[in-house]
């Protein structure tokens, strides 16, 4: 079985070391003997799903984001949305996350349409509002199907001006324990729908939260073989990195 990492706009949306997410998925597959390939999907290039994919959509600058919108407004965006609705695996971080909502409003007041996977929109920071920057610790909300499982936590670093407001049809990915999250107001962080995840956390996100990496990998593999199980790995180093940041944040030294 082969897993394909579909890296969307890899050359444009690669701010804040989001490459760490690609490396994390790739290595954790390789260490388990699962064949893995990284495919860059650039501007103007069509998506070619293999049936066992993880789509990664990283963060970029406003200027780059504007260029993507046109590319996403056609069939590519519709296809991504269909993949999400079908239970395909997508992770959007920061700018990529924002474009997974209905629209993203630029500081100039222009509303850039997003893919619409999540019922949400993002508005720009007002002049009197600060950028939301710092370490974040958040508790991931289990889906209804996952009740009874132990709640998991994620750590990362956020750095965004935009404020994301979730609509009634959207589930937050997590509740902020420390940090700002979606808008610095309602305590939510990120969004989730089926196997699609969106978050403001980089740092990079996946290396310090290996259980989430494994969840993305498993969700993708189970689309081909629903009995697939992942071998456990030694996550002592990742656990120490998580604990170091989480401990600091909990002690109020974020």
């Amino acid at each position, binding site marked *: 079985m082969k897993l394909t990492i579909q890296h969307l706009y890899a050359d444009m949306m*690669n701010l*804040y*070391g*989001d*490459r*760490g997410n690609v*490396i*994390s998925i790739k*290595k954790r597959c390789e260490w388990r003997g699962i064949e893995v390939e990284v495919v860059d999907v650039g501007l103007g290039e069509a998506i070619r799903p293999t049936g066992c994919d993880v789509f990664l959509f990283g963060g970029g600058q406003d200027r780059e984001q504007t260029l993507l919108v046109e590319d996403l407004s056609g069939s590519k965006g519709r296809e991504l949305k269909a993949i999400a609705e079908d239970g395909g695996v997508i992770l959007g971080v920061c700018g990529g996350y924002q474009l997974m909502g209905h629209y993203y409003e630029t500081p100039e007041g222009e509303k850039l349409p997003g893919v619409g996977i999540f019922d949400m929109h993002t508005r720009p920071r007002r002049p009197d509002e600060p950028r939301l*920057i*710092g*370490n974040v610790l958040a508790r991931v909300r289990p889906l209804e199907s996952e009740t009874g499982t132990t709640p998991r936590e994620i750590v990362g*670093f956020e*750095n965004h001006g935009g404020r994301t407001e979730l609509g009634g049809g959207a589930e937050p990915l997590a509740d902020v324990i420390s940090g700002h999250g979606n808008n610095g107001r309602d305590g939510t962080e990120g969004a989730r729908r089926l196997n699609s995840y969106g978050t403001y956390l*980089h*740092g*990079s996100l996946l*290396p*310090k939260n290996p259980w989430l990496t494994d969840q993305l990998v498993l969700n993708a593999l189970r689309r081909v073989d629903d009995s697939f199980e992942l071998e456990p790995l030694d996550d002592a*180093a*990742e656990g*120490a*990195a998580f*604990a*170091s*940041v989480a401990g600091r944040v909990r002690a109020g030294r974020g």
Partner: protein
Amino acid sequence: MPGVVARRVDPKVLSRLSGKLPRGSAAVTGTNGKTTTTRMVAKILQVAGVRAVNNSTGANLVTGVTAALVADSSLFGKPRSEMGLFEVDEANVPKVAAEAELSLLAVLNLFRDQLDRYGELAYTAKVIASSFPDLPEGGSVVLNADDPLVASLGRSAEKPIFFGVDEPSLDTGTLQHIADSKDCPVCGTALSYEAVYFGHMGVYGCGNCGFERPDPAYRATRIRMDGPRGTDFLLTTPHGGIGVRIALPGLYNVYNALAAATVAGEMGVRPTEIARGLREFGGAFGRVERVRAGEKEVFLLLIKNPVGFNEILRTFLSGPDGRLSKPRNVLIAINDNDADGRDVSWLWDVDFEMLAGSDAGTNFFVTGIRAEDMAVRLKYAELPVRWAVPNRKEALRRALEATPPGETLYVLPTYTAMLELRRTLSDLGHTHPFWEDK
């Protein structure tokens, strides 16, 4: 020490040689940033096509200044350079000013030294001011307006030129309790601050005698910190303003760049050349420090950004095939303080993978506030980590212990980790660094 010998042979050698420099000499003094500032001026002058001799090996006593000039001069005692550019230890300013024709003397700041070599700071200030009458006709004094004690020296100078920072967003709002001069240097009353940038640097005034921060002729405004990658600011000079980018983190380095711009500007260099010199300063990975530690050698290589980190890996650790060239001892120290960049995501943009697949037996040790993040990064590049010890002192001690005699320990720290490790090296008695530019 050629400087000592030369001075014994000819006690007047410094004044004789410096008198032959067509454009005279400039000296930079102060507690922090002398070396960086002097090097920045040297780079600007190079860009402007001015040939300057400088004591760039950190020898900043009068003997070091003499040695630099002697080395620059022909057998017939004629300097090859047009001007002298010297970094001068605070206590040596009067000697150098008395012997060398200083057309310009810049005072960066006065902080309490950890060893408190010269006693009270006020005394050091007096020592520096005592040299002003020795400056030749038309010689100028450049002072930091934001350091009250340094600014107060302007009262003893004829036409002092001030530089300062005007950036309200960098106001920390609080005077650190370790601040060195909280009191008015003129009358001793507590100063009131409108803005505090760091330490005792800021915008201040005395409610009692009216002493206040002088208006700077050279200013840095609109400062934007770009983590470890660098800093942007707007430089205003009496000869025009220009946007400046430096490849160094931290407000300290804005002060260094601003001081360098002031010195260069007063020597007649145009703002465009100043900006170009500052932009080109430091190159990919700035300064390399080599320190002898008993039978071992320590290479300190400052990490500023992914590009610089890659350059260091390529230059010092990898062989022609790109893999690790031979067994090395490498200590990586990652902090996430403001001056380092609080977000360590950038570690994932560094190509550690270039070293992978090697069985050269290199020992990777990691330390710093973000030691664990660094360990994970190396793990995912399939590079084995011997240990991760966040405490910098402890880690350096252990890494030195693990380095066999005759071998080199490569220390790759981010900015504030470098300051800490340098202090630890000096506490261990390993001082007298040797400077190199790359």
